């Protein structure tokens, strides 16, 4: 399963209480949609660190890296690469 699929599934299940992928576009901004606040982002970070074996540094906690499914997937790829 690709990182993007896993991340979307996690956010759908835990933030939208759904498995309906039409509810979350891969490029949807979590901030613009009001889906993930700063506490929610801590939860997403924990998921990323536990599921993908990466460590997210403080300076990496920016919307450019984390504010959509695709941005997160690209961030994981860069971290793992």
């Amino acid at each position, binding site marked *: 399963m690709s990182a993007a699929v896993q991340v979307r599934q996690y956010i759908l299940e835990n933030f939208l209480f759904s498995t309906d992928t039409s509810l979350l576009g891969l490029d949807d901004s979590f901030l613009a949609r009001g889906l993930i606040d700063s506490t929610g982002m801590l939860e997403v970070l924990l998921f990323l660190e536990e599921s993908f074996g990466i460590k997210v540094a403080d300076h990496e*906690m920016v*919307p450019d890296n984390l504010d959509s499914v695709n941005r997160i997937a690209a961030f994981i790829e860069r971290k793992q690469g």
Partner: protein
Amino acid sequence: MTTQPLSAERAFALDFAAEIERIASGVRRALSTELNRRGLVVAISGGIDSSVSAALAVRAVGAKKVHGLLLPERISSPTSTSRGRLLAEHLGIEHEVFDIAPALEALGCYARIEEVCRAVHPGYGAGWKNKIVLEGGLEGRYNHFKLVAQDPAGKIHEARLEYRQYLMIVAATNFKQRVRKTMEYFHADRLNYAVVGTPNRLEYDQGFFVKNGDGSADVKPIAHLYKSQVYAMARFMKLPDEICNATPTTDTYSLAQGQDEFYFGLPYAQMDLALWAYEHGEGAAALGAALGISEAAAMAVYADIEAKRRATRYLGGAPILMGDPPGAA
């Protein structure tokens, strides 16, 4: 948007005599027509907001109908209690000190906080102090908290709190505000009084309060006043110098903690001006010039104001209903 330069003097100008009378009559009206209570309970922390709120309560209903509570716990600064007493005596109100530490101990508040501290900083124990510090929002990053601990030798240790640790330390710490509110309502019920909430505009707008803790009250007399105005009102009302000159602290963690590092990111005077500028449609360039920061940094301050509003909006709201029962407001 105005063409005048952005300044605290212009933003926070207020006719204090008229405003005090307006608030006092509003509180009297609320007590007699909506709350049907005979007086006011105010928890006094020794800080500027509760001091001005208590003074306004006295203006509204007279000293004999105001009951002051000083509610220290294990890590409360002794100066908080001494300033609280000073204020109560200055106002001539009935007051009492009740130590909430045994209740907090029984609820597991201190043990839970120490568990997190030990998990984050192995070696944490007797003689250590802690606080949590907000980071990120003003640099365009997501807001997150660091646990800062000081060992007995004075060395500082810092680490980012992960999700579960952050939730636990906040949940355990919130016992403090909620136990205090329980005591306030005990006395309000016993006396048939109403409870005064003491948030200023910055705290009220930005959600800097605990739901069912310090956020809970029957009347909030200064929720519309910027903190700069609250300080100015304290001086106008001639409250004791020790109170007028007090630095805002949370008095919630064992290591000294300013409200700016805990929540707002900027000292209150700058945060006040930023909120005023945001509310009055001032551009980021004007705010940056007034605060001596870049336009980009000022834009991050605006974004942070919006993010905190969004994240905390539910704190002040009524429960969300799934229907429209008769009698609902």
